[in-house]
Structures are given as structure tokens and as C-alpha cells.
């Protein structure tokens, strides 16, 4: 309430200042003399960003409202700098959009590369979380598909931005396009969540079999720890298997006595890549995709 009061005080002050510094009657007449601007609203912005409406829009002559905005240079800029700033900001709008699209494309395509790397290797990793048949693997495929779609969308929009930027505006106003983008972002997020959950599950399993800290586990496991973990993995993938059968399986060579250090590291690396890939595709989406509409601040940050 107080802030509003201060603002309306500033607005009144500006209005009274303008009433003697500008011949408003003549200004309005001059504006009305231009047929395209007849009845236009006149808005004034001072150097402190106080905005006041000198004249409302007159709807008797045209349906769509038109406004003439008069803006003083901000306090920190002189006239020349302000003119350059306005010229630059108008000219660079599309250019900065192209940069945003390209940045989003690079991130999404990076995520797609990581995603496909994980999908390619998922069959080869030790089945710590259930192997190729688990829901996590299908989610990884879905997340890779989403990243691929985001990468395609980024490339598509970037080329449009170079060839014909109005095509992107047409796409942005299409409801179907927005809905498909939302779906792709959601799948990407689900993939990120699944990758995180899988990584946590793996770490939990590893920590339950070792007295080491999570950092030490990433460095490597001892032979005894690897053996214990291997048995747990076999039990996890074959629920209800007895100790006797488990030993028989190991003895017959169907399962190794213990998975090697490299195999564990490989499985962990895959899950980490999956998690990083998923978060990258989300960032890519935040820059050029649907999440953009929820986080406008991000674009402004990059613009600076």
C-alpha cells in the first residue's frame, strides 16, 4: 500500500512537471494530425522509470489500441548512449533469439548423445537395477527419445531463425506445438527423475555391502566387497534363489564369482551419464523449449 502511495505520488509529481514543461495540447494536436496516430494514447516514462498516461486511447476512430510512448533516457545513460542502446536492443532481438536457440540445441543434442550412449550400453552394464528388462531402461529410452526430439526441435528452430524467423512465431502460437513440447519436456523430466532414482538405488546397494563412504565407493571396491555385491545382484535379478543354487550357478560359470572393478565403474558411469544427460536436456528445454515460458528470468540472464 505504501509503495503504491509513493508511486502514485511520483506519478502525480511527473504529471505536474509535464503540465508546464510540455505543451500537451499542441502535442496531442500534432499527433492527431498524423492520420495513422489519430486518437493514440500518449504514455510518458521518465528517467526514474515512472510511467504516466498523458492521454487515454480514443476508440472512436480505430478498434485496435495504439500508443505513443515518450521515454526519457535513464539516469545512468546520456542521450547518445540511450539512442545506441535502443537501436541495439531492437536490432539484436532476433540475433539473441538465434543465440538462445543455438545454445538450447547444443545442450539438447549433448543430452541426446549421452542418452544414446546410455541406451547403447544399457544391455552391456551389470544388471544392478534389473538390467535390460527393467522399467528404468525403458524410461532411459523414453528420455533419450525426448532429448532427441528436443535436439531436432532446436535444430529446426535454429534453421527457421536463419531462414524465416516468422515461422517460429507461427509455431509458438500453435496450441498443438505447445502441447507436444510440454509432453517432450515431461518425458525428459521423468527420465531425469528415473536416472537420479537409479543412481541413488545403486549407491544404496553399494553402501549396504561396504563400510566405505560414497566417495570411496566411487574410487573402487575390494575383492570381498565385490563378491558380496555380485551375490546380491544375482539375488536381485532372480528373487527367491537359494544359496545352494546361487553357488551352483557361480560354480558352473553362469555368473562370475565377483564382477570386476571395471564392470562396476562402467555401470556407475552409465548411470551418471544418464543423470547428467537428463539434466542437460532439461536445461536445454529451459533455454529454448517449453519451460522457457515458466522461467523468463533465465533468458534475461543470458541476454546480459
Amino acid at each position: 500500500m505504501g509503495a503504491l502511495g509513493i508511486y502514485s505520488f511520483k506519478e502525480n509529481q511527473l504529471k505536474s512537471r509535464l503540465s508546464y514543461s510540455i505543451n500537451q495540447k499542441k502535442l496531442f494536436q500534432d499527433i492527431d494530425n498524423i492520420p495513422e496516430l489519430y486518437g493514440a494514447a500518449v504514455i510518458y516514462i521518465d528517467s526514474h522509470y515512472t510511467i504516466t498516461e498523458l492521454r487515454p486511447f480514443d476508440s472512436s476512430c480505430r478498434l485496435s489500441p495504439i500508443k505513443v510512448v515518450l521515454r526519457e533516457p535513464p539516469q545512468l545513460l546520456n542521450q547518445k548512449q540511450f539512442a545506441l542502446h535502443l537501436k541495439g536492443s531492437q536490432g539484436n532481438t532476433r540475433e539473441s533469439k538465434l543465440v538462445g536457440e543455438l545454445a538450447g540445441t547444443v545442450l539438447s543434442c549433448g543430452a541426446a548423445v549421452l542418452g544414446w550412449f546410455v541406451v547403447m550400453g544399457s544391455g552391456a552394464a551389470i544388471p544392478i537395477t534389473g538390467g535390460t528388462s527393467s522399467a528404468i531402461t525403458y524410461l532411459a529410452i523414453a528420455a533419450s527419445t525426448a532429448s532427441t526430439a528436443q535436439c531436432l526441435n532446436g535444430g529446426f528452430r535454429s534453421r527457421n531463425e536463419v531462414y524465416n524467423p516468422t515461422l517460429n512465431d507461427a509455431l509458438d502460437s500453435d496450441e498443438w506445438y505447445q502441447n507436444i513440447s510440454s509432453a517432450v519436456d515431461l518425458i525428459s523430466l521423468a527420465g531425469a527423475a528415473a536416472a537420479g532414482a537409479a543412481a541413488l538405488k545403486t549407491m544404496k546397494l553399494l553402501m549396504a555391502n561396504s563400510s566405505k563412504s560414497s566417495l570411496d565407493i566411487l574410487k573402487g571396491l575390494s575383492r570381498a566387497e565385490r563378491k558380496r555385491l555380485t551375490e546380491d545382484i544375482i539375488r536381485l535379478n532372480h528373487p527367491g534363489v537359494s544359496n545352494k543354487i546361487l553357488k551352483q550357478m557361480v560354480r558352473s560359470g553362469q555368473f562370475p564369482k565377483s564382477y570386476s572393478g571395471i564392470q562396476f565403474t562402467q555401470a556407475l558411469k552409465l548411470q551418471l551419464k544418464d543423470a547428467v544427460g537428463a539434466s542437460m536436456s532439461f536445461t536445454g528445454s529451459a533455454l529454448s523449449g517449453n519451460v522457457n515460458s515458466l522461467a523468463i528470468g533465465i533468458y534475461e540472464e543470458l541476454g546480459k
Partner: protein
Amino acid sequence: MSDKEDKACSSYPPWKLMRVFLLVTILIILGTAVFGSTLFNMYLYDEPRIVAVGLFTLIILFCVINVGVTRGSFLCATILKYYALFLFFSSLWGLSGAENNIHYIISFINIVAMFGAFYLISGKSYQELVKYKHDFFEDIKETRRVIEQQLAVSTKAKHVGKKYKGSE
């Protein structure tokens, strides 16, 4: 177990083959994006909905085929090869829509990229990777079958043992 032994038993595809697969994947995704954009720019500028739905359908199909490749399907690799060839010809056609130097540069890069994708898929490394994955999944199938057989025999023996004890 030494590092050498670890590597010998590791079933992960060699990095050299993986690189080719990932490069082909990215080239085809971007080629599809350029193809869609050319189509949109030249013919379908009034139909953003058709373009959006068409592109997303196309990319889902591509992903299904690419997953097939990761699972060792030679058929999927062949489909992908002809798709890359189609994109190559479409990129030649896209050259006609170029209006300035930047357009020509982008079109030229796209033509080279699509030919590169086709060449890589037809190449030895890509085919080797598909064969590698094909053999790997065949091995998994075989191992699973053996495990299931073993489990069935053990369960049956256990069941018979219980029955015998019960009758005593």
C-alpha cells in the same frame, strides 16, 4: 583380476564403434530438422500444426529404428541407411531455396553431413557395431535360456524332495 582380463570380459562396444554410432545419430537428427524446416519454409508455412506433428512422428520412428540398431538389428541399420540417403537427396533439393551466402553455406554443410551419415552407415565400423550388438544379445538370450533350464531342474528336484519327505 587384472585390468587386461577385465577388458577382455567387458561386453561394452569399443569406443571407436560407439563414436561412429553417436555421430550418425546426431547427423540424422539434425538432417531431419533441416528437412522439416525446408518443407515448412517452402510449402507448409500455413500449416505449423502439420509440420509439428509430422516432425515429432518422424523422430519417434527414428528413435524406434535407432533402438533397434542398439539391439543389433541389421534391418534397422539398412532402413537408417536409406533414410540417410533420402535426407541427402532432400538436402540437394533444399539448395534451391537458398537466397544468400549464409543459406548456401548451411545447405552445403547439410549436404556434406547427410552424405557423411550415409557413408558412415554403409561403412565397416557401423556394420561391425551392429554385428557386435547382435552377437551380444544372442549370447544373453542363450545364457538366459540356460539359467532358466537350471532353475527349472533345481525347483523340480526340490519339489520332488519335499513330496518324498511328505510321503514318509
